[in-house]
């Protein structure tokens, strides 16, 4: 059993704080572009969390796809719309206050349920990768056991590409 305040524990709390701060900023900002950038911060924090858990490939994938591509996609989508880019401040009402209390109670309930659950734990002395690095194990599984799903991914990506082109072409015809 590692001590409570090990370096990993401190890193975990710092990263969690960063993620939560970005999430709260995302909800409280009134400018849509700032919200998109805060979402990017959440993605990067999650990547750090994955790396902390020892899943480097998932962490890098998170940076490459989510922090890189998805955030850019959201920003482009905002640029595409004729949005005023600023949302008006909304006043507090009784309904909202009740909703906040409900959310808080739900959070507390979920926390207690999660903490009270006896989660199955693996044997830490067994290496599920059989000595291979994570990326190598993922590659082996992906290209041997999950060959068909992998090829279907390329089909899915192609469909997404063609669909986007068709949608944009139609938009062009309208103008």
């Amino acid at each position, binding site marked *: 059993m590692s001590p409570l305040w090990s370096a990993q524990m401190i890193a975990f709390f710092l990263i969690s704080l960063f993620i939560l701060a970005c999430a709260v900023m995302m909800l409280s900002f009134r400018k849509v572009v700032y919200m998109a950038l805060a979402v990017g911060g959440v993605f990067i924090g999650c990547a750090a969390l994955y790396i902390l858990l020892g899943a480097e490939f998932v962490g890098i994938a998170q940076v490459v796809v989510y922090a890189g591509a998805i955030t850019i996609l959201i920003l482009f989508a905002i640029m595409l719309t004729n949005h005023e880019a600023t949302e008006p401040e909304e006043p507090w009402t009784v309904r909202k206050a009740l909703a906040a209390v409900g959310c808080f109670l739900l959070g507390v309930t979920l926390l207690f349920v999660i903490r009270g659950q006896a989660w199955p734990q693996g044997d830490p002395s067994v290496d599920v990768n059989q000595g291979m690095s994570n990326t190598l194990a993922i590659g*082996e599984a992906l290209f041997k056991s999950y060959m068909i799903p992998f090829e279907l991914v390329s089909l899915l990506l192609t469909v997404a*590409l063609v669909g986007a082109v068709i949608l944009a072409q139609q938009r062009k015809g309208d103008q």
Partner: protein
Amino acid sequence: MQPYWNAYLFIVLFLVVGILLPVGSLWLVGPLLRPKNPRPEKLTSYESGVEPFGDAHVRYHVRYYLFALLFVVFDVETLFLYPWAVAYGKLGWFGFIEMLIFLVLLAIGLAYAWRKKVLEWN
């Protein structure tokens, strides 16, 4: 396990230096060293030497969004290349053919976009 985490200590170090460098040069040390002599021309935003005009918050053409979507699709494709490259020695020709099918399918999508003149700029 410990050397593994020590490698990430360097990344944290780089992160700290990377944040401190611009903050230090622009906010902390910079104002003490540089002359401060602002004029209206100096305070305009820089637009590659052209005088700035119009508002930046305009509605952009849908074509930009298509480029972003193309980027996402090929970003995901690149991601799959990493485990493939790492496991290549163990997969052999079978893995090579698999990745070839994957790439050819996506190349068809790109060729389609090209044919539909999505990549052209006029």
